[in-house]
């Protein structure tokens, strides 16, 4: 797994470290004991409102040295997108010393993770020698339901390898009833967290306050045991001349406790400290230098240290110069800021943004700039740092996209226009992107730096590919190439994905235009630019959570290379590339909604030519589920051709025609138009309408061996042998290079068919042997099946040839032995074993892996092995799909 050495960003490190326990602390041994007991089981829930002491209690427990192994910690933040959440969980586990197998992978998309990633994670945890105890602090409702659901999944499938301690202001969206029914949860709720009379007395004692019993009773009545209230009150009393009087006033006052106490404590501070607190609250975390930038004074370090010492409002982040504000205090301070200094808040955000940008914190600078409404600044940060791509891919894409959602559409300037273009592209709005790029062009002048021009060229390449416009893509790629030379190499070194992305998109555009050889060269460059497979890429700023962004172009380029190979008739190579692309997607847990699905499409294309219709159909379904990128026009056309070939092979000519006719012919290359025509003519031939098949082939402007072969087929079907022979004359003979093997094989097959029709059996046999020799390396079975029973007749007459060509009928004996299937259903290539069928039947009853294991007296790992084998044989990736597919095939 790609875990970089921590580079020591204190803000990030802080998220994986329990907050420091306050010096003045009540030892709540009963609660600590319950927490310790809870952490011995799967789930512990600590629930209570802000300031009720959830985090302090949990941090206290985590700091307990008596624990055998300290728990791992993750402070969840509301902006954590699901993908980012899981990346942080992996990082927390890694920092806690949990070694997960490398095949678990790492999420690279903000939107979410795949179910198979969760399965691998759960498996990895189940296999670890001792359970991992992970605290998820502030796991609030800001988390989307999918995250809670995924957490529940991992927890239930980790076979005891994961124990979670959650702190949250509201109940998480986990099926708590199920954990309660199973006795697998310990809950510490608001009522448990309330300070008792004794707790309050102990805390006041820690503050060296000597309060009467009546005073403590008043305090308890007023605060109802709310921990933050008791603490704030102790703080205010320390500063008050007469604590008892303060308590009486507090008890008599009817203002909400938080408002009253915070105002009291704030007003008790000297004016410069008040001013500092009000100003730093615009960021949740504050550095002394940032505080100085916000106040314009130089007392930040001293004042913050003093406040932290008093435990008022903020605390120091472990072993760093940074401080964090208590969330409740930050909110109240912001309310005070808005009331006391109206209009100052945006200006403070702007100052914070500039300080963060100066100190190299790009994402935070952009977010603060956006909060300031300073769009030119926020946009320029992304453009100048060559980070426009982060709006499209990566863990922060959602967060950054949301930040710019408030940018007015017509914001002036080149950088805002470029950001708007990238956002439109992320939303798959091509014309919106093109409009934004036109605005950028109008605003871009020579005085703009090379970064802005590169940003324009970068988006030009992406938009050009999506539009299927090779000329525009090439122009933009040429610009980008030139501009890359003008940029400082250290900046480029931080963006290894840039060159890869540019080459991957250019190669895809070349492929779309039908330039296979050029595309292959460009795409190979793109793959090489992604670095050696599986290599560690050191050097990016945030350890572990910041991937270097090459997964996406790598997956894309491999998919395109697979398509190139398929069109070249190199089916094995196509399969290898497609599988490599899928492996990258799998490792980085790319959700299907973000994948182009070209890899599955290619595998379907390979499968149909090899006459493996079950696999073809299943890959087509998987390709259809990958809805991420709107495919360029050429890919759409190719998807239709492969879909039509499969439907036709399944005997559904109507579906084949419908697929082909759904393609809009605009923006298609001649080659793609020809591919569509050949596919449609094959449909007509299969329906016995050779005239229609021939008519279609006269239309396309492009000429080539594929069309000649298709024409010869149609002519042969019409009984016009000499014309067919003439059509084939233009196709190179076997042994000649330059034409794809499948086309030459097909030509030889047609020549054999011609000879057979003429009664020249010797010639037919010779030509057929030629065709089979050409088709054998790639196992091109489909064309022989399509050609008709005469092939089999010739082969059967010659036992030697029949033996030699056994590959034409793969695993035939097994097929009949497999479970009975409904008519018309494609066969399973490899039958399931009796044990696999048993496992699948249990899976169909919605049993979990553990439950299946128990029922069949197997280990959970054996069940998993069976399931993996079932998935492979049925060509699916999920349990539910396996069940559906088996049901469709009549195996269950």
């Amino acid at each position, binding site marked *: 797994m790609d875990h970089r050495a921590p580079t020591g960003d204190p803000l990030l490190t802080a998220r994986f470290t329990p907050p420091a326990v306050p010096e003045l602390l009540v030892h709540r041994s009963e609660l600590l004991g319950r927490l310790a007991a809870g952490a011995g089981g799967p789930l512990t829930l600590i629930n209570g*409102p*802000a*300031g009720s002491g959830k985090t302090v209690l949990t941090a206290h427990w985590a700091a307990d040295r008596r624990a055998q192994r300290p728990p791992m910690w993750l402070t969840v933040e509301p902006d954590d997108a699901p993908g980012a959440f899981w990346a942080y969980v992996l990082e927390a586990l890694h920092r806690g010393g949990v070694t997960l197998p490398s095949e678990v992978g790492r999420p690279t998309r903000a939107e979410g993770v795949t179910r198979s990633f969760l399965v691998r994670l759960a498996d990895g945890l189940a296999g670890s020698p001792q359970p991992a105890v992970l605290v998820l602090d502030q796991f609030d*409702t800001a988390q989307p339901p999918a995250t809670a659901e995924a957490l529940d999944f991992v927890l239930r499938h980790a076979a005891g390898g994961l124990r979670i301690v959650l702190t949250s*202001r*509201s109940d998480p969206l986990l099926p708590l009833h199920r954990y309660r029914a199973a006795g697998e949860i310990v809950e510490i709720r608001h009522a448990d967290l309330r300070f008792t009379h004794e707790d309050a007395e102990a805390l006041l004692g820690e503050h060296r306050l000597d309060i009467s019993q009546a005073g403590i009773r008043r305090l308890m009545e007023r605060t109802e045991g709310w921990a*933050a209230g008791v603490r704030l009150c102790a703080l205010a009393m320390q500063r008050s001349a007469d604590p008892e009087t303060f308590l009486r006033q507090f008890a008599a006052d*009817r*203002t*909400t*406790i*938080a*408002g*009253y106490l915070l*105002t009291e404590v704030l007003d008790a501070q000297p004016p410069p400290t008040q001013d500092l607190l009000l100003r730093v609250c615009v960021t949740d975390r504050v550095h002394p230098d940032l505080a100085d930038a916000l106040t314009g004074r130089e007392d930040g370090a001293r004042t913050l240290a003093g406040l932290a010492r008093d435990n008022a409002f903020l605390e120091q982040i472990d072993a760093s110069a940074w401080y964090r504000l208590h*969330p*409740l205090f930050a*909110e*109240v301070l912001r*309310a*005070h800021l*808005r*009331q006391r200094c109206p209009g100052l808040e945006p200006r403070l955000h702007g100052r914070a943004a500039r300080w963060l940008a100066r100190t190299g914190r790009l994402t935070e600078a952009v977010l603060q700039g956006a909060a300031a409404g300073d769009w030119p600044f926020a946009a320029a940060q992304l453009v100048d740092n060559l980070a426009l791509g982060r709006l499209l891919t990566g863990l922060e894409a959602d967060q950054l996209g949301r930040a710019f959602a408030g940018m007015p559409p017509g914001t002036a300037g080149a950088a805002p226009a470029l950001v708007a273009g990238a956002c439109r592209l992320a939303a798959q709005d091509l014309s919106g992107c093109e409009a934004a790029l036109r605005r950028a062009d109008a605003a871009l002048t020579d005085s703009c730096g090379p970064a802005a021009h590169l940003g324009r060229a970068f988006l030009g390449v992406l938009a050009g590919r999506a539009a299927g416009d090779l000329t525009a893509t090439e122009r933009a790629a040429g610009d980008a190439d030139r501009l890359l030379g003008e940029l400082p190499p250290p900046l480029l070194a931080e963006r290894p994905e840039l060159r890869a992305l540019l080459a991957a998109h250019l190669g895809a555009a070349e492929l779309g235009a039908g330039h296979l050889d050029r595309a292959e060269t460009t795409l190979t460059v793109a793959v090489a630019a992604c670095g050696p497979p599986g290599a560690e890429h050191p050097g990016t700023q945030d350890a572990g959570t910041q991937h270097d962004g090459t997964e996406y172009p790598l997956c894309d380029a491999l998919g395109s290379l697979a398509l190139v190979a398929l069109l070249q008739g190199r089916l094995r190579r196509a399969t290898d590339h497609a599988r490599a692309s899928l492996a990258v997607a799998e490792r980085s847990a790319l959700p299907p909604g973000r994948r182009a699905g070209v890899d599955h499409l290619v595998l379907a294309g390979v499968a149909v030519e090899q006459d493996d219709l079950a696999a073809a159909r299943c890959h087509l379904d998987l390709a259809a589920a990958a809805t991420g990128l709107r495919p360029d026009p050429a890919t759409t056309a190719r998807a239709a051709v492969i879909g039509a070939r499969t439907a036709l092979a399944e005997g559904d000519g109507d579906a084949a025609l419908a697929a082909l006719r759904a393609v809009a012919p605009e923006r298609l290359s001649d080659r793609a138009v020809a591919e569509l025509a050949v596919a449609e003519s094959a449909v007509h031939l299969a329906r016995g309408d050779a005239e229609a098949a021939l008519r279609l082939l006269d239309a396309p402007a492009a000429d080539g061996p594929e069309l000649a072969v298709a024409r010869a087929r149609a002519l042969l079907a019409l009984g016009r042998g000499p014309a067919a022979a003439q059509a084939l004359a233009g196709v190179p003979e076997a042994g000649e290079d330059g034409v794809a093997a499948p086309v030459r094989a097909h030509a030889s097959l047609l020549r054999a068919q011609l000879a057979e029709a003429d009664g020249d059996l010797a010639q037919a046999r010779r030509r057929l042997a030629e065709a089979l020799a050409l088709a054998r390396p790639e196992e091109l079975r489909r064309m022989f099946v399509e050609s008709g029973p005469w092939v089999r007749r010739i082969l059967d007459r010659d036992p030697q040839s029949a033996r030699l060509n056994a590959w034409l009928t793969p695993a035939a004996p097994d097929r009949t032995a497999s479970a009975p299937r409904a008519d018309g259903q494609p066969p399973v290539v490899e039958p399931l074993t009796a044990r696999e069928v048993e496992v699948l039947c249990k899976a169909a009853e919605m049993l979990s892996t553990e439950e299946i294991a128990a029922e069949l007296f197997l280990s959970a790992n054996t069940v998993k092995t069976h399931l993996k084998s079932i998935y492979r044989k049925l060509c699916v990736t999920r349990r539910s799909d396996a069940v559906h597919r088996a049901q469709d095939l009549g195996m269950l």
Partner: protein
Amino acid sequence: MRYEFRISGVVPDTLAAGFPELDRIPVPEQTLLFGSVADEAHLYGLLTRFQSLGLRVLEMRRLPA
């Protein structure tokens, strides 16, 4: 939709300013905040904001239009 929220204690002006969309009536030991709520997202957003400011909601009800 119009809603009324009954908050424990008197909400000070500073905190109430965070809810410009709501009107406020102090009642003994409590505060009534009421006003029109755009949709369910707004409603839950308000509840979260009450919570993050340490305001305790005792009661919430929909008012007749």
